[in-house]
């Protein structure tokens, strides 16, 4: 049924996070239009410009469809693994923020999605997971459809065997590996189709990757995708024909660049899913362009992004500043070569390249990517094939993408042997590397990043360029850092520091250069390294013989050290509003006890929060004192009780142990001053760096304050900020010699705050980018940081917050390089203020990854050939809530060029590369004309460049269009025409359903004696323990769920961990004679991996208590039957299982 915007806005609020009403309206209308197009055509194409939130619009469509049809089954096909994960992350954020109500169809109370999200590493995993539970949301990636059958024998066998385990009935000859790889892929695809369930909605992200469609000219990957989803065909294997059929109901395609230069590419994409029948005009050469636009516009919508700047609307061509003349220093001027050596080198290389292109093999034509000299003159090694077909498609190791060159022989770069010889000669004769003016100009420009804190994103074509650029920038950074340290650190430390610098240089000269550009380790442990002095001195173990940054860092982590509580918060001091030295008295007064008794109680309570270690660390005792005092305050009615109870519940309750240990916390620990207790006393600094939460909800306040504190302290210890903190610590050390250095004292808190205050009071231009700037930026953009990078922190167990944040911010590097594989952590760090300031990557990060939050400039160092590739790259930093958008949309006196989003196309004038840049920029303009109204249409592109023709063509660079862009594919009135209808369930009905569920814990449950847990946050979950006849207590959880339109209550009771094979065997044998529904948890971590679970449908409300009581009796009784004979020592209390039982809702199973 078609719907209206009025209907949709009852369910969706797109403005809640972005705070941009116009964009929110566009997104809502987009969701409604796509919903209605899908209803009519079963296929829709959302082609909004990059960064407008296509993912969110698509998620809005899913929510609308699912709200009215809760059984909707979803499959999302993402272009790469990182984007696959991003979809899952965004679905969580969208559900929490943009779905207005807990309808129990799309969103559960607490803002989580109703359906679990399933990440599938490949198609066999998709088969396995859909067999286990098809009613979940599945996320796969496009390369998985390549099927790894071309490589080594073992890999083929392994894949075949895995597939057979999922489809055990497959006839032997269908999976006979002696068949040709293409035949085999086709058969496997048909078999996968047979075993897959039907998906009501399939979303394909970055669908332009399918522009070659179906047929002989298309990739095997496309054929497999189409077959897996059941595209109509008449040559299905007869044995699979009875089961072969469509697995896709509605298909939603997403891409900002649906075509490059021909509407035929759009037809190809529709045809791949068997939905092109009504759109034949798109491939008809005789059809007029108007006709093609009209036809495409039935299913395709595209809106153009714009920003309102000082009251004026700017489309992307107006708020981006393109540097088309090639320079990087001064806008619209070419790179200046002033040095004679550079000029001579360039002339020589150009002569050689021209001679090479004059060879009859090339006929003065070259393909983009075949010349290595545009990027580097360094020697290049020979290409080797990638091990994993899935990661790179069919390319070799010089590139990550598949559109750079089509001839395998050219991939290495036809000019490489010539360059290698030149480079060798130059090094031998002059004792230094061959200069590369373009690279040197870029390095000079980017070296300002650590002075002004501005981030830069650099795209290269060749993998080798990643490491070369990074190495040069690391050299620049090292010079800057060492100089900065010497200037800042007291003279008495210089001798040791200089020795350390010398040692670093020696070690760095001896190191083996990294073979891969994957950005280094992605593990939790920071191993340091020799890339930069920062990595060597401030991270990992650090050098011996000096109190290095790494060593001070370790003291901040060590709970036994004096600095171990530096970044803790003294909640009790803050809660009681007491000053250091007065907390114990204030606590006694609040408890209404004499101080002696209050202290005795504190000691006694603290024994439940300490481990059995003989001598707990000072940090552990400080924590126990906090927990004990807060628990005491939570028990006494009064002004402090509500807040104390929340802090205690969120941070300390889960740590409480049933038994007390001998060790105890001394009350004077409550007088401890920390960075946060002192920051509270400096109002302006606090407002800038650790602002008080605005929420009226107490739990939300406590959570936000704690999360902000964790982010602030991790940033202070692990990145650029630490340079300043380290300097302050060394001010209070007599020597950097570990044998002479003493433990830093309490005065460091004050000194560090003074330093931050001094920076706050000094204009940034006069002091350079400093600790204060990074911390303030982090605080100012807290919500953005959580939404884009750490959404899980909003609902995580608060005790895990410091680990999550620490894991994210560890192993920072000022310059990051990435090719081959995505380093998740580096990408996430680039979305935060601070390191890495420069990210150099191949087209690995071209699609889908958001890098816009703190970056406003991009360098196409290695220019891509297609407009879609260039647009996708720019789209990484041109998105909703980007740094550019935030900067431009605040009221300002005037906007100058520096304020715009900077797009650089570095190249040298008077070189062949300029010809290429000019062609690409012409194509960019052509692409704009194709997608927007009132512009002439281009001729199809050719990725080969005719040097002679280009040289004689008009030499000027094409200008950026200066008029406002208007889309050719707006949302039409017919797309929004529908029927107003009420939501399937509204707020009041959901409240009644939740009240009905909550009532279960209030009334009598016949035949069951139950203790319910207090203070549970999730209204769709109840935790309790039932007292069994034999005196044992059995914990359980009840979850309110939905099956279609009916409400279901599920009861889960944990048995525990079954660790030995013998126990598994016993359990199997015993369960055969018992009508028990056992649940096995796949991940073998945590407190249990075996449960008993069962559910009942809720019918008449008057029967709820009796039906649910029967359910609880059955489930807990069966668990008792298992435990008594098989696991007799396993009668464990609810507290043991609590954190996991709280998360057994359907979305988390």
């Amino acid at each position, binding site marked *: 049924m078609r719907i209206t915007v009025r209907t949709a806005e009852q369910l969706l609020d797109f403005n809640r996070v972005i705070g941009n009403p116009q964009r929110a309206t566009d997104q809502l209308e987009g969701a409604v239009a796509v919903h209605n197009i899908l209803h009519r055509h079963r296929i829709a194409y959302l082609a909004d410009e990059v960064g407008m939130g296509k993912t969110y619009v698509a998620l809005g469509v899913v929510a609308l469809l699912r709200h009215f049809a809760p059984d909707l089954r979803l499959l999302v096909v993402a272009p790469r693994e990182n984007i696959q994960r991003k979809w899952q992350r965004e679905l969580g954020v969208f559900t929490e923020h943009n779905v207005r109500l807990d309808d129990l169809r799309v969103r559960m109370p607490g803002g989580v999605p109703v359906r679990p999200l399933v990440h599938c590493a490949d198609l066999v995993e998709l088969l396995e997971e859909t067999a286990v539970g098809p009613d979940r949301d599945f996320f796969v990636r496009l390369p998985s459809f390549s099927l790894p059958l071309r490589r080594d024998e073992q890999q083929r066998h392994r894949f075949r065997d895995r597939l057979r385990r999922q*489809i*055990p009935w497959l006839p032997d000859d269908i999976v006979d590996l002696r068949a040709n790889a293409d035949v085999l892929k086709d058969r496997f695809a048909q078999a996968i189709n047979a075993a897959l369930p039907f998906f009501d909605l399939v979303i394909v992200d970055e669908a332009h990757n399918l522009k070659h469609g179906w047929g002989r000219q298309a990739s095997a990957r496309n054929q497999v995708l189409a077959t897996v989803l059941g595209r109509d065909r008449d040559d299905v294997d007869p044995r699979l024909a009875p089961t072969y059929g469509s697995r896709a109901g509605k298909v939603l395609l997403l891409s900002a660049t649906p075509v490059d230069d021909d509407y035929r590419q759009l037809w190809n994409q529709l045809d791949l899913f068997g939905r092109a029948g009504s759109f034949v005009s798109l491939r008809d050469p005789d059809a007029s362009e108007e006709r093609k636009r009209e036809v495409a516009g039935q299913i395709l919508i595209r809106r153009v992004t714009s920003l309102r700047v000082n009251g004026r609307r700017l489309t992307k061509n107006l708020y981006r500043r393109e540097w088309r003349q090639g320079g990087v220093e001064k806008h619209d001027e070419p790179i200046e070569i002033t040095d004679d050596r550079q000029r001579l080198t360039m002339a020589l290389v150009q002569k050689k390249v021209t001679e090479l292109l004059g060879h009859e093999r090339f006929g003065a034509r070259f393909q983009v990517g075949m010349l290595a000299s545009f990027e580097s003159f360094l020697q290049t090694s020979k290409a080797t094939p990638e091990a994993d077909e899935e990661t790179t498609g069919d390319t070799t190791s010089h590139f990550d993408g598949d559109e750079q060159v089509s001839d395998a022989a050219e991939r290495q770069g036809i000019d490489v042997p010539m360059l290698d010889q030149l480079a060798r000669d130059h090094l031998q004769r002059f004792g230094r590397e061959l200069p590369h003016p373009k690279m040197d100009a870029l390095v000079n420009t980017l070296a300002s990043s650590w002075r002004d804190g501005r981030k830069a994103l650099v795209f290269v074509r060749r993998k080798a360029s990643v490491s070369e650029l990074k190495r040069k920038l690391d050299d620049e950074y090292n010079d800057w850092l060492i100089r900065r340290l010497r200037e800042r650190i007291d003279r008495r430390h210089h001798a040791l520091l200089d020795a350390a610098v010398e040692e670093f240089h020696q070690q760095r000269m001896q190191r083996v250069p990294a073979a891969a550009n994957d950005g280094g380790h992605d593990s939790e442990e920071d191993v340091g390294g020799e890339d930069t002095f920062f990595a060597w001195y401030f991270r990992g173990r650090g050098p011996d013989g000096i109190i290095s940054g790494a060593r001070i860092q370790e003291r901040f982590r060590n709970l036994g050290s004096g600095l171990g509580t530096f970044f803790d918060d003294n909640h009790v001091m803050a809660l009681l509003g007491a000053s250091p030295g007065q907390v114990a008295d204030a606590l006694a007064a609040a408890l209404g006890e004499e101080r002696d008794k209050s202290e005795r109680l504190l000691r006694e309570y603290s024994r439940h929060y300490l481990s059995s270690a003989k001598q707990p660390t000072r940090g552990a005792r400080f924590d126990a004192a906090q927990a004990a005092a807060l628990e005491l305050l939570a028990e006494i009615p009064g002004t402090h009780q509500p807040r104390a109870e929340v802090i205690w519940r969120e941070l300390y309750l889960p740590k409480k142990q049933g038994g007390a240990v001998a060790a105890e916390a001394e009350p004077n620990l409550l007088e401890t001053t920390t960075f946060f207790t002192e920051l509270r006393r400096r109002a302006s600094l606090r407002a800038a760096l650790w602002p008080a939460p605005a929420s009226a909800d107490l739990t939300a306040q406590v959570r936000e304050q704690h999360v902000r504190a964790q982010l602030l302290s991790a940033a202070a210890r692990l990145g650029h900020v630490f340079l300043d903190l380290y300097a302050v610590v060394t001010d209070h050390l007599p020597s950097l010699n570990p044998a002479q250095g003493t433990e830093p004292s309490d005065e460091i808190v004050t000194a560090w705050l003074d330093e931050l205050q001094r920076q706050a009071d000094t204009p940034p231009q006069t002091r350079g980018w400093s600790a204060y700037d990074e911390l303030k930026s982090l605080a100012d953009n807290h919500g953005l940081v959580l939404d884009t990078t750490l959404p899980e922190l909003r609902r995580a167990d608060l005790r895990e917050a410091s680990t999550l944040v620490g894991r994210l911010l560890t192993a920072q590097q000022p310059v990051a390089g990435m090719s081959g594989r995505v380093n998740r952590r580096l990408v996430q760090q680039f979305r935060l203020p601070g390191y890495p300031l420069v990210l150099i990557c191949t087209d690995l990060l071209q699609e889908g990854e958001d890098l816009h939050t703190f970056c406003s400039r991009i360098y196409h160092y290695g220019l891509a050939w297609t407009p879609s590739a260039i647009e996708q790259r720019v789209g990484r930093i041109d998105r909703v809530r980007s740094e550019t958008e935030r900067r431009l949309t605040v009221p300002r006196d005037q906007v100058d060029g520096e304020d715009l989003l900077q797009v650089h196309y570095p190249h040298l004038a008077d070189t062949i590369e300029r010809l290429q840049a000019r062609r690409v920029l012409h194509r960019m303009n052509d692409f704009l004309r194709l997608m927007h109204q009132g512009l002439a249409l281009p001729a199809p592109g050719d990725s080969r460049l005719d040097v002679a023709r280009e040289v004689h063509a008009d030499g000027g660079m094409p200008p950026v269009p200066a008029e406002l862009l208007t889309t050719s594919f707006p949302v039409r009135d017919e797309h929004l025409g529908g029927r107003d209808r009420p939501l399937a369930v509204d707020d009041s009905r959901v409240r009644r359903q939740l009240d009905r569920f909550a009532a279960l814990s209030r009334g009598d449950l016949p035949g069951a004696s139950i203790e319910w847990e207090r203070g549970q946050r999730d209204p769709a979950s109840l935790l309790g323990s039932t007292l069994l006849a034999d005196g044992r207590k059995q914990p359980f959880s009840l979850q309110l769920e939905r099956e279609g339109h009916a409400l279901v209550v599920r009861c889960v009771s944990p048995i525990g961990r079954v660790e030995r094979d013998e126990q598994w065997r016993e359990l199997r044998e015993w369960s055969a004679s018992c009508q028990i529904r056992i649940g096995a948890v*796949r991940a073998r971590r945590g407190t249990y991996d075996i449960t008993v679970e*069962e559910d009942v*449908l809720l019918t008449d409300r008057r*029967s709820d208590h009796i039906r649910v009581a029967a359910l609880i009796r059955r489930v807990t009784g069966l668990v008792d039957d298992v435990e008594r004979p098989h696991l007799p020592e396993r009668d464990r209390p609810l507290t043991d299982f609590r954190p996991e039982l709280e998360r057994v809702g359907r979305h988390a199973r």
Partner: protein
Amino acid sequence: MRAEWRTLCAADDMRVRGKRITVSFANERSHDVQVLDEGDSYLLTAVVAEADDLDPGQDAARAAWRRNRHSSLVGFRIDEEGRLIAQAWTPKDGLTPEAFHTLVRTVAREADRYEFWLTGSDDR
């Protein structure tokens, strides 16, 4: 309110024979569900696969238990004869025809789906 199950399953897609209900699906497949009266509750079961149909190299019980974490209203287990069984349980109190239909159809549908996954055929 407690109703005898036969009075609860008047539906076009259900045919009762003794203690057995045959549920027909739109795709022309069907599956039998057996009803066991346990006094205060009913247990509905359906055979997914005979012991011979199960791969001895696979731990079918554990696979079924893993599936149970994600299934709603229906669970799976291996019985004493080594057969893979789908089952659902419901108290009699408050049981309505709609709820009983939902339960019977869910057991039949999920048993059928599991059977197809294992054998590629419809023998039940």
